[in-house]
Each structure stands twice: as structure tokens, then as C-alpha cells.
């Protein structure tokens, strides 16, 4: 007959078990550490890398100018892209087949063709439409008219290309977000007498944001890097200016490293920002999470 332990014994039964040996893991760790050290060594002592040039150009005026253009392009095309995405998503979920079709056509076309092609296309739009105007459609008289080659600078072409392309992807993200909201929310809002617009703005979108924001953050971070594609139309952003500099001083690798350092700085800052914004939109759900977490771990240190 086994003796059941008394309460006093139960209170203190430390588990001090011996783990089985894991030689494989140790070997893998040693190999990885060795590879890292070797890689760092070869980079640091490599004379072809010209660390002095990298240091010299990191804060160069032209590089900083390109950095600023990259930031502007990213922020503007994300903002416009998000607006287009919301518009396309709302059209997609509307009752009108015409609106749904237009939205589907938009996402189908811009997701189905390479961004690089779109950028070159926008830059050369003047070949198709030499002038833009406001006036009577179907070749009627024009009120105002612009020449395409005045309007379409590398920057506007880049912005058009990036924003319209982004909008097509954001549409999908926004649509998933809107669909994630309990239909009961919409009904409760309608029962209060809210209009469709009010329901969308006050009830559906704020809740959809929780689902929309994490992938949008990823899109933003990816956009920081995607702007480098604009270099094919000489968009004056970070990669373009770096290229211009190395065409003069032949420091190809050094300038690419300068650009990469800035891209990494930008994406790191954006990732930190993403973390805090996601926290902010957890409002009302955060409390539940804390509660669930506390309930699952009743003896945690109670850091609510």
C-alpha cells in the first residue's frame, strides 16, 4: 500500500530532473557560431568593402535627400493606397453589380501585372495620353488642360504606380477586415438609426482596423523597400541617388551598403511603430486578453 503524501510534503516537491543529452543541438550551435564569426571576420578585414567610403557617404547630403524622397513616396503611396483600398473594398461589398465589377476589375488588373511594368507605363503615359483635361467627356470642349510630360515627373509617376498598385492589395486586406466584423454589430448600429456611412465609419471600420492594421504594417515595411523599384524611372529616391553616386566614384558595393543601412534603419523604426500602433487598436479587446491570460495562468506575477 502506497502512502499518500501529507499536505506538508505536497507543498515542496521540487522537480530537479536530469535532461537527456542533446549532442545534435550542441554541434549545430557550434557550427552556426563559427560561421557567424568567420563571416564577420571576412567582412571586417575585407579591403574591397571600403568602410571609410561607407562612413563618408552615410550622411552625404544627396543620400539624405534620397532618403527623404523614399520616406515621402512610402507614406504618400500608403495613405493613397489605403484610401483606394477602402473605396475598392466598400464597392466590392456593395449591392450594386456595377460597383462590384469595377472593383474586381481594378484589383484583378493591378495585382495581375508586375509593378515594374506599371511604373514604366505611368512614366511613359504621355505616349498614350499626351494631355489631360477637365471638361466634357468623349472629346468635348476642355475647361483646363495639362501636358502629360509636364505633369508626369518621375515622382508623380512613382507615386501613381506605387499607390494604385498598393490600393489593389489593400482592397483585399480591408475587405477581409470588414468581413471579420460580426454582422450583429452592423445590425445594432442600424437599429439605432445610423446611416450606412455612419455604420461604416463609427462601427465597422474601427473594428475592422484590428484585422487591417497588422498586414498594413507589413505592407508599409515592404513598401519602404519596394520604392527602390522606382530607380528604373530615376525617381530620385535612396537607391537612385546611390546609383548616381557610384556611377561617378565607382564605389558600387560601398554605396549599396550605404543604401542598405538606411533601408534597415527605416524598416526597423517602422517595425517598432507597427508594434505600438497594434497595441493602440487593441482597445476594448486588450482587457479580454489580459483576463484570459490571467485566467490561464492563475499564479503568474499578476502583471495586468
Amino acid at each position, binding site marked *: 500500500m502506497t502512502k499518500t503524501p501529507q499536505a506538508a510534503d505536497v507543498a515542496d516537491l521540487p522537480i530537479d530532473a536530469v535532461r537527456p543529452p542533446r549532442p545534435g543541438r550542441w554541434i549545430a550551435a557550434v557550427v552556426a557560431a563559427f560561421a557567424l564569426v568567420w563571416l564577420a571576420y571576412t567582412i571586417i578585414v575585407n579591403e574591397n568593402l571600403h568602410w571609410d567610403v561607407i562612413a563618408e557617404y552615410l550622411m552625404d547630403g544627396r543620400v539624405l535627400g534620397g532618403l527623404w524622397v523614399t520616406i515621402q513616396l512610402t507614406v504618400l503611396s500608403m495613405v493613397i493606397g489605403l484610401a483606394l483600398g477602402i473605396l475598392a473594398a466598400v464597392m466590392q461589398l456593395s449591392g450594386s453589380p456595377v460597383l462590384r465589377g469595377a472593383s474586381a476589375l481594378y484589383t484583378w488588373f493591378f495585382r495581375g501585372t508586375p509593378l515594374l511594368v506599371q511604373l514604366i507605363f505611368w512614366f511613359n503615359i504621355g505616349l498614350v495620353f499626351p494631355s489631360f483635361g477637365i471638361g466634357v467627356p468623349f472629346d468635348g470642349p476642355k475647361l483646363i488642360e495639362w501636358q502629360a510630360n509636364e505633369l508626369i515627373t518621375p515622382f508623380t509617376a512613382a507615386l501613381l504606380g506605387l499607390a494604385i498598385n498598393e490600393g489593389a492589395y489593400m482592397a483585399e486586406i480591408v475587405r477581409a477586415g470588414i468581413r471579420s466584423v460580426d454582422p450583429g454589430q452592423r445590425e*445594432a448600429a442600424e*437599429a*439605432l438609426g445610423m446611416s450606412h456611412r455612419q455604420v461604416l465609419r463609427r462601427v465597422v471600420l474601427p473594428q475592422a482596423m484590428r484585422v487591417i492594421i497588422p498586414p498594413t504594417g507589413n505592407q508599409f515595411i515592404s513598401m519602404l523597400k519596394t520604392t527602390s523599384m522606382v530607380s528604373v524611372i530615376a525617381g530620385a529616391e535612396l537607391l537612385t541617388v546611390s546609383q548616381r553616386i557610384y556611377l561617378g566614384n565607382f564605389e558600387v558595393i560601398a554605396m549599396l551598403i550605404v543604401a542598405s543601412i538606411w533601408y534597415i534603419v527605416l524598416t526597423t523604426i517602422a517595425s517598432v511603430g507597427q508594434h505600438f500602433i497594434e497595441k493602440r487598436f487593441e482597445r*476594448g479587446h486588450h*482587457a479580454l486578453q489580459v483576463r484570459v491570460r490571467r485566467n490561464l495562468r492563475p499564479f503568474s506575477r499578476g502583471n495586468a
Partner: protein
Amino acid sequence: MVEPKVRIRSVRKCFGSVEVLKGISLDVPEGGVVCVVGPSGSGKSTLLRCVNRLETIDSGRIWVDGDLIGYAEQGDRLHHLRPAQLCRQRQDIGMVFQRFHLFPHRTALENVMEGPVVVKGVAKGRARERAMELLERVDLADRAGHYPAQLSGGQQQRVAIARSLAMDPKLMLFDEPTSALDPELVQEVLAVMRDLAASGMTMMVVTHEMGFAREVGDNLIFIDGGVIVEQGHPRDVLANPRHERFRAFLGQVL
């Protein structure tokens, strides 16, 4: 004769080829409390949802306070109301749902303020004062700053009632307001509804709480298969159910 607050005439409603309401007619007098009972799928929720036009009807007429719901009568033709007019009609009809549907991203107080501020354009300060009064009335003034996820089911449902009352409705619709609640939380919600009925609110209540129906209801209707099978004063019909189907139903819920 006094105009009834709600007048429902020969309402039919189909979902696809299934006819869910097969000609419902019903009057609710000013300040009356109608309790709607019936088996699952009999069309109780659909009936309430037709009254505030969350569902369209296929034939029949519904008037609330003399206003035809969903249409304008011009000559002998009906014209669909414009969306803004539908919203106007809904403002005067409160609805409380089985699963509360509070706005999770707003506090209890903000939930109650939302309707007046957004729909009626009431100033925030004024709306906040009124919302606090209503939270007081449902005994939740101390939870004003809590988010729905931090409230119990019974508390959430009381906030939902306050949210509807904030629009000063002429009529309140309750769709099984206590069915999603743990038994010990049912009474706190029923108490609020009892007070509301005593204050003279006209109410249509879908419920399985026969005690509440007997005590508060002026009229009880039993719906089965999309028609009203039996109706009368709750005390009478509950004591002497005439139809076999109603008797069988009562046998299950009591």
C-alpha cells in the same frame, strides 16, 4: 378608438422559397407589453426584425405610431422610403438583441452616447449627462468606463438596454434578451425590463421566461409555423392553453 402604437396587418415574409411569416396581424396598444413565444425557427425574431425594417416584408403592412414602416403611401401606390427616411423611422424603435451586440471598442458610457451623438447630433456633454442617467437607471453607473469585454453578460445586456433608451424610442423590441445569460444573471435584466414596462414603455418581447410574461405582459402570442396559433392575456392563456401545439410547447419550456 385609440390608435394602437404598433399595428401589424397580414405580414408575410419569405426567405427564398420558405415562407417564414404567413400572415401575422397584431395590435400593440400604447404602453402595452406583448410577449411573443414559440418554438425555435417559428419566426419570432423575423417578426421583430420586420417591425424595425432590419428585414423587408413581402406583403402586409406595419405601422408604428401611425407611420407606415418602410413605405410612403401616395394615392394608391406605395413608394419605397429613401435610406435617410428609414433611418429616421428606426431611431424611434429600440432593439435589444440576444447577444447584446455592444460596440466592443467603446466603453459602456460611449456605447450609450453613440446613438444620440452620431445619429441625432446631440452635443457630447449633454449626451454624456443623459447616458450617465441611463446607466444609473440600469444600475451600472459605476461601470461607465468599462469596455464590454470587462462586463458580465447581464451587465452588457443592461448597457444595451440603456443604449437603446438613449434614443428616446417610442417602442422597444427585445429578442430573447436573457437567453444568452447564465441563470443567475437573468433576473437583473428582467428587473430592468419590468421597470421599463412600469414606466409605460410599449414593448414587444420575444422570451422563454413565462414568469416574466405572466407578471408583466398584457398580451401573449404563441407563434408556430409562421402563424399566431394562440393569443390572449398571459394569465389566461398560460392557465388554460387551448391548442394542442401550445400545450406541448409549454410542456417543454416550463
